[in-house]
């Protein structure tokens, strides 16, 4: 039986920045949930969740051996740390944008 949960219930995340590119690494706690999270949390879904902020391409890289996913968001930082007018110009808080999304797990 599948159920919907906030990603935060089943994974941790950390955001990083390089220029105007943000990346959010997602780590699934229980390996049993990894495939389900991978199916549910596609790059398209992440981009569609925040289209005004995630303006460029979103690419997902998978690390199945470590149960990780890495979302790389081009033009995701409103110009980057030295140009953005966002209080959080690094996008350090973006990990929680991803953790707030719902995923379907088995």
């Amino acid at each position, binding site marked *: 039986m599948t159920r919907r949960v906030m990603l935060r219930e089943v994974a*941790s995340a*950390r955001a990083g920045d390089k220029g105007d590119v943000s990346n959010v690494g997602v780590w699934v706690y229980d390996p049993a949930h990894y495939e389900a999270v991978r199916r549910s949390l596609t790059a398209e879904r992440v981009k569609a969740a925040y289209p*005004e902020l995630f303006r460029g391409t979103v690419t997902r890289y998978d690390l199945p*051996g470590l149960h990780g996913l890495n979302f790389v968001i081009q033009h995701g930082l409103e110009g980057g*740390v030295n*140009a953005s007018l*966002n209080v959080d110009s690094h996008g350090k808080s973006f990990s929680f944008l991803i953790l707030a999304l719902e995923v379907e797990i088995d």
Partner: protein
Amino acid sequence: MALRIGCGSGGAPDRVAPAEDLARDGALDYLCFESLAERTLAQGHVARRAGSAGYSGKLDARLRAVLPHCVRNGTRVLTNMGAADPLGAGEATARLAAELGLSLKIAVIEGDDVLGLITPDTRLEETGGTVESFGRTPVAANAYIGHEAMVEALAGGADVVIAGRVSDSSLFLAPIAHELKIAPDDWDMLARGALVGHLLECSTQITGGYFADPGYKDVPGLDNLGYPLAEVDPDGSAVITKLAGTGGCVTPLTVKEQLLYEVHDPAAYLTPDVSANFTTVRIAEEGPDRIRVSAATGAARPDRLKALVAFDGGYLAEGEIGYAGPGALDRARLAAEVVRKRMTLRNGFNGELRFDLIGATSLHATAGRASESEDIRLRGALRSMDRRWADMLLEEIESLWMGGPAGGGGFRGRVTPSVITQPTFVNRADVRCSVRWIDA
């Protein structure tokens, strides 16, 4: 006997005391201070232009705290605290050594300054255009240089190596490559050293910092985080750990989170030294706060070096005023509307103007996330080359005190000079790094 490498700082604001703890008690062979974020180097250039020191303002405090321990314990120091002025930092270190009565061989790494290679036709990666089409004058350009010049400095007997824009991971790879005699084309071993550097370079981000989420990920002693150290074995694998008695934790998850920090394609993490593949990495818990990382693999380093071109970014103005109690959100929104109208219609400002409702929606405002709150800080922000617009925004926000919606209080505002950085790539052969010696 494993090679012991400590991290003395992971960025400019990092505390000094945990580095002193490591220098005193860590039985370290090397202590590396990473201090340069994209913004920090830009700030160094701003400072240098304004006639202040272009190197890290914490150079003196950090080295003053650790050098006596390092000399006593045979620990060598590497740092990129030279920032926009490595030679100035080297000379300052020599003066400090003299003051402390220490005899040190100091090596300064030069060559990361590539402003001379930047032309109007230089292509900027993120804009897709050229320097000329960007419409601003470059004030500095620095290439991310690799470990080789630092290895030369260590081979020459340096006690302290001071660099500017060396790549963060290279700072830690240099002593590993020097001690393990890693050839400059042994990609797998270079990748393992780069992995150790990548994991250590943000200090507490691997010992429990940037991690705690109460009820989900709890961290003991977050008020007393220790800085990490690596015990590197001859096969390039390493145990990431921290000093006993310090706060925080090193766990498989703190290591994993840091593994992807600021990484794009984890199968091709590009550094000046190697293209590292982190997807093959194995992470194993060997004991409390002892995590072994192994099996990184590598491929040939990129032909070109990444460089950041810094442009004068003018001034960043940020002003805030608060509204609380019933109707706070409506009053804050009205205040924003007043300031926007004042700035655009009456004062004639036509640049980008941003308003945040801190408490309801700010960091995630552009993402469209908001919450109800009755305690709001209205924040207005703009950037301008003209200081007068920056000052004017703060005046308009401060005017809300008497002339805005009811109950506005707690005005704060500041204007910060800023630099805008844009990445580009330069040919490796055009970047000539060298070691300059200072005897102290």
